[in-house]
């Protein structure tokens, strides 16, 4: 077992974890924060994307033990976050989800796009979204939602 001291959504947590426990399984099974979804579990689909020290990472291929000392934000931790509030509304208005399976990871990736790349155009948004698979929407609504938030944030 490995000792783990981690901050998830503002809460300090100390735990003893098996080294092979992924950050995703720690978040979902141990913390019961099931908003973070798991699709492929080898880094390809993006469903499990969370923020680690403010940057998006794949929680399925990050061991919980390796995240020791870090600050994690999962989809449940964005209540007070302005860009996420804008994205939530825009996803709703632009029909950017159907089944919602990809949505938690999609929103975390979208937040990274609107904060890191304020000048992104449609091509860039689509390029950045290559790492998040959605099997329902065909991406049109997602791209529209992200572009609308980028525009809002420019004024």
């Amino acid at each position, binding site marked *: 077992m490995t000792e783990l001291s981690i901050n998830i959504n503002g809460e300090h947590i100390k735990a003893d974890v098996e*080294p*092979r426990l*992924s950050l995703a399984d720690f978040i979902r099974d141990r913390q019961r924060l099931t908003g973070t979804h798991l699709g492929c579990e080898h880094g390809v689909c993006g469903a499990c994307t969370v923020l680690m020290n403010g940057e998006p990472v794949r929680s399925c291929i990050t061991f919980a033990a*390796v995240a*020791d000392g870090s600050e994690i934000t999962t989809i449940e931790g964005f209540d007070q976050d302005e860009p996420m509030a804008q994205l939530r509304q825009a996803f709703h208005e632009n029909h950017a989800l159907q089944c919602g399976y990809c949505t938690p990871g999609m929103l975390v990736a979208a937040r990274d796009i609107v904060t890191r790349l304020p000048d992104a155009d449609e091509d860039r948004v689509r390029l950045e979204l290559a*790492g998040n698979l959605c099997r329902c929407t065909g991406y049109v609504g997602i791209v529209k939602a992200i572009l609308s938030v980028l525009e809002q944030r420019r004024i």
Partner: protein
Amino acid sequence: MKPAKFEHQRMASLDEAVKALGNAEGETRVLGGGQSLGPMMNLRLAQPDVVLDLSKVEGLDGIEETGNAIRVGARVSHARIEDGEVPGKTGDYMQFVATGISYRSVRNRGTIGGSVAHADPSADWPSALLALGGSVTAAGGNGIRTISLDGFTVGPFSTGLGWDEILTGFELPVLGTDANWGYYKVNRKPGEFADAIGAVTLGVEARAVCGATESAPFRVTEIEERLASGVQEVSIAEVRDILDRYDAGFDDYELQIHAVALSRAVQGAFA
């Protein structure tokens, strides 16, 4: 939990890590960003007994220019290179390469040292850095060693690193402000591993690399000679003829996409 059981050891220093690796019993792996080892362990393609976690080891994530070389630490992430932290023309080239590696959330954790140590034939850095030239630095039981990037990748998942060595960083040439470079990756979707790579830099010497082969990337001397003599364009058909003379094991399709990649890399260098 998908990986097989293993022991996780947090290393406090490079010395400790080198000792732990040297004294290891059973299969021991150094953990970089975990972006290749993680998937391989989840798929149980890798089942190490011990994983040495270097996350808390200091001194492996620096980027500095020292006269005629740029030192890049093994644990520098692809994302930092994408964000332009490597200076000058060398940095422009590396920024372009980094931006095409996987996706931002993988680039935030994946490291340049991990990529080169891993030596996936389809990965970007082994080919891209061979085209740049320079060397790898490694720390092992016998101290620090410098190994040329020429020939460092030996084959698929196989490098010149000793079993008890940790890759600590790279010493890369400073490309002059007027130096040309080109990089072309053939893949079906942005961020995927390459089906073919062409990489060209024209620094002190002209270097041209055919990468993402079945084995190690290799330099294509005939194209380098042409570039050195001032040629600025090599057609796909010409590259195809040249590559066909190498024993790379390409079938017709692979020969074609590798020729396209290298021809377009040359084109990119003079665009």
